[in-house]
């Protein structure tokens, strides 16, 4: 797919496979929690593969598609510069080191699984992770309140209830609420023609 291959910013050479691997390797080992700020730093500031606006557009695509957002970014950028092998280099670079680290950590934990100290440590960490997730949810929900449109808030609350309370599957939530939200958005955009 040669047409997928494109150049980065003027004056910056097209990144080769090693550079793609290395760039996303750095993102993988740097990103605690969300890797996206590190992806922005690597792609725009350090390597100058994309301008700010191009990065925002690539990010919009990665969030629009299913799957892990930062993995999608590695696929689309790697693919843009070096085709399918570039995508592979980006993804492998991104996940290789974190995979080894998390498996070694889990192995150590499993080895001392009977120790009350290890059980207690995991319990304490899980509580902090709960706090981390709750605060992230609030941060992500804030822009919905600022828009002052009631329907996205209603859709979000319905999705929360469907997934957390009624335990509907992700697919069921998306198939019902996604089109419903889209329908409302279309009607709000063209109120006269409907």
């Amino acid at each position: 797919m040669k047409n997928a291959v494109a150049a980065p910013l003027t004056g910056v050479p097209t990144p080769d496979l090693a550079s793609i691997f290395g760039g996303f390797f750095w993102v993988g080992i740097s990103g605690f929690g969300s890797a996206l700020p590190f992806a922005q730093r690597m792609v725009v500031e350090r390597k100058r593969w994309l301008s700010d606006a191009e990065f925002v557009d690539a990010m919009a695509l990665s969030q629009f598609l299913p799957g892990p957002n930062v993995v999608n970014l590695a696929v689309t950028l790697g693919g843009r510069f070096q085709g399918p092998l570039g995508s592979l280099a980006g993804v492998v670079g991104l996940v290789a080191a974190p995979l080894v680290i998390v498996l070694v950590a889990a192995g150590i934990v499993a080895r001392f699984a009977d120790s009350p100290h290890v059980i207690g440590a995991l319990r304490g960490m899980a509580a902090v992770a709960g706090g981390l997730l709750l605060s992230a949810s609030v941060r992500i929900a804030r822009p919905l309140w600022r828009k002052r449109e009631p329907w996205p808030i209603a859709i979000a609350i319905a999705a929360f209830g469907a997934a957390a309370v009624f335990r509907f599957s992700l697919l069921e939530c998306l198939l019902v609420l996604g089109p419903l939200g889209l329908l409302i958005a279309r009607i709000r955009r063209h109120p006269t023609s409907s």
Partner: protein
Amino acid sequence: MNSPLIELAVVFSQLGLVAIGGVMSALPDIQRQVVEVHSWMTASEFAGAFALTQAAPGPNVMVVALVGWHVAGLAGALVALTSLIAPPAVLAYIVASLWRRFSGTDWVKDIQSSLNAVSVGLIAAGAALITLSAAQSPALDVVIIATTAAFLGSRIQPLWLLGAGALLGAAGLI
């Protein structure tokens, strides 16, 4: 269908393709599949595994590797992670070349705002489920409330508070 590796591949390849909004929106469904449907982990084991991935570098998707590792060792980790990543990666590769034509159109904007609203609800649902299984004592409830406030009120690195939580827990204080 008895092989755990095949079960992992089936479950996570389907989850990857519907994980719109990223792994965090899929968290309620990952938890449902892992804890309720397949009983691979208890709810508190899953919360512990998730906490471990938050204390380690790398994308949130690593929680899936830990589930696979728990079920079938190293092969399980690789199968679970690859199954979740590969189908959406292929889709992303194909769509990327078409994206320029549709990016910024009204239709795409409306689809994005609808999916974003669904994601917000799903991410909050995942947070609620993980938090409920982590809230096992009044002291842990206090930790959850205090850390939520700390993360909202400051830009503190999660690793510091995760480490503090681990120390307090290891010392038997919470």
